[in-house]
């Protein structure tokens, strides 16, 4: 990158497209970028076949199939990108990351299957994990759906209660006086610490787990909502009052919108806490879901299934997180260009 490009990158703008830039970045994708992914997959495949005697044939079969698919898809994409500009810029951005990820699979394969540097059955190779993913897909899907149902119900309740209590504590002096000490004492207790109590109180494991998730979400949402509401700029409230605003307008059209950036921080913190609580609650109480699946597979010492479930969890949780980011971008469109997280 030349200096102009570096400066404009620092300034957060597109680099200027001079003649050399065009040939380097603009019109075509360099060969290196185009072939990095298929070559990495080929490399993984070669490594695996080198050691494939040690692996069951069925694992080798599905792993090779995956690598062939990666090679095939990336070659197709290499052809399509010549005619489709958006794909090209996406590939330019993503190919290095994909290449690194695929190469890591190769390294993993060498360390586990190849030289058996890590003890079995705790550290299976990628082919074994892939095989578990495929063979147990029904149960994994079912577990994911159960986790999703539990997460959504717990999160929704925690969110609603947290918003209401946060708004009340943030707006009203008397409620803050009585509510804040409670919040400060009860809130920091990790929701999972209530598990013994929840198991005794509630009629079903699902309800108690959802309640624990709600509790985990409630605290950060309440805290951040309350601080957002009570820190509403006084001048916004003054302006609104000189415009003839009553209390309803001040709360719902000034204080709450002003608190929304803060509320979203609470929602993200709550989401993180809810993942944690979900997995713990499922592994001790509920007899379904990804958390349960992990401890169940561990009980049978089927560690390839444990890793398979972890992969699903990573995809699941990061998708939910991404969704929340999308919602935030929509809601906080008025902050566009001013937020940096």
């Amino acid at each position, binding site marked *: 990158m030349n200096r102009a490009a570096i400066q404009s990158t620092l300034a957060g703008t597109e680099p200027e497209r001079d003649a050399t830039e065009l040939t380097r970045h603009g019109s075509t994708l360099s060969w290196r970028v185009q072939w990095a992914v298929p070559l990495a997959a080929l490399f993984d495949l070669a490594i695996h076949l080198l050691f494939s005697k040690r692996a069951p044939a069925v694992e080798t079969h599905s792993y090779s199939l995956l690598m062939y698919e990666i090679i095939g898809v990336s070659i197709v994409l290499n052809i399509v990108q010549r005619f489709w500009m958006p794909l090209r810029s996406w590939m330019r951005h993503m190919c290095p990351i994909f290449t690194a990820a695929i190469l890591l699979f190769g390294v993993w394969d060498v360390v586990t299957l190849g030289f058996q540097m890590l003890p079995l059955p705790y550290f299976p190779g990628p082919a074994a994990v892939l095989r578990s993913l495929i063979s147990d897909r029904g149960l994994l899907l079912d577990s994911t759906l159960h986790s999703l149902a539990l997460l959504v119900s717990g999160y929704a309740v925690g969110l609603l209660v947290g918003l209401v209590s946060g708004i009340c504590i943030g707006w009203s002096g008397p409620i803050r006086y009585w509510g804040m000490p409670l919040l400060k004492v009860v809130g920091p207790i990790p929701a999972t610490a209530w598990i013994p109590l929840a198991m005794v109180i509630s009629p079903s494991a699902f309800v108690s787990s959802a309640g624990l998730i709600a509790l985990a979400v409630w605290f950060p949402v309440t805290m951040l909502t309350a601080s957002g509401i009570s820190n509403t700029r006084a*001048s916004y409230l003054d*302006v609104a009052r*000189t*415009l003839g605003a009553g209390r309803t307008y001040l709360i719902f059209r*000034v204080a709450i919108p*002003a608190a929304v950036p803060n509320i979203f921080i609470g929602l993200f913190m709550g989401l993180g806490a809810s993942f944690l609580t979900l997995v713990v609650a499922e592994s001790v109480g509920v007899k379904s879901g990804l958390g349960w699946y992990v401890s169940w597979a561990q009980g049978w010492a089927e560690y390839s299934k444990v890793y398979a479930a972890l992969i699903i969890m990573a995809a699941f949780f990061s998708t939910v997180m991404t969704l929340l980011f999308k919602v935030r971008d929509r809601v906080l469109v*008025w902050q566009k260009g001013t937020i940096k997280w």
Partner: protein
Amino acid sequence: MVAFAETDASALRIREIRKSFPAPDDPVTKRLVLDGISFSVAAGELVCLIGPSGCGKSTLLRLIAGLDSTDSGELFIGSQPISEPGAERGLVFQDPNLFPWLTVRRNIEAGLVARRVLREKRNEVNEFMRLVGLEAFGGAYPHHLSGGMAQRVALARALINHPKVLLLDEPLGALDAFTRMRMQDEVLRLWENRRTTMLLVTHDIDEAIYMSDRIMIMTQRPGRIDRIITDALPRPRDRSSSDFLRLRSDILELLHFAGDSATA
């Protein structure tokens, strides 16, 4: 203490206002900020309030707006005593204080929404956007606006309630010199167009002379109205005319004199 004609035609009448705040270093003792302020503003008049910083100009505006309450004294808007904020007294601050989560159009509508009259008066929104020359920016968010544009939105937002008095607290203080002069003409145009009574606080003598019918000069700590000068220069005014400059040097001298007497 200034004598004033007590006419019921005045849009704003203020009598013997006193206001003190706790001293910042010692909350028990109170510091008198406004000491017996009295004046009235006729309907359709544009009055400027100038004085050194810290003389209580902004405090006075907040009292008139109803955002703070007086220690003693009376405030009337028409014949109604002022007790709380109301839409008949618009207030524009130095910071436009636009709601950043609303578009320009929704900011201008805010007063109508707050008073629950948006449905009947929706057509006025376009009129006011046009009035301040922002009809093309209805969908823009405040952080995209320049300082002058933001202040025009703030003016339109205050004017859409048809206030009996528009209170302006150094509204052009944060703008650069050129934008500022353009905005002075803009405010004058709005004033001539709508004949809204305006009370403008400023620390810029030129601005006061350029814009007002009368100029009230305040002294510092405690704030008192020292002198009221009638500014009868013909409109539109020329910032470099000899009359303008003479008035300017008179006021400068007065302010200097006022400063001396306050410290004495």
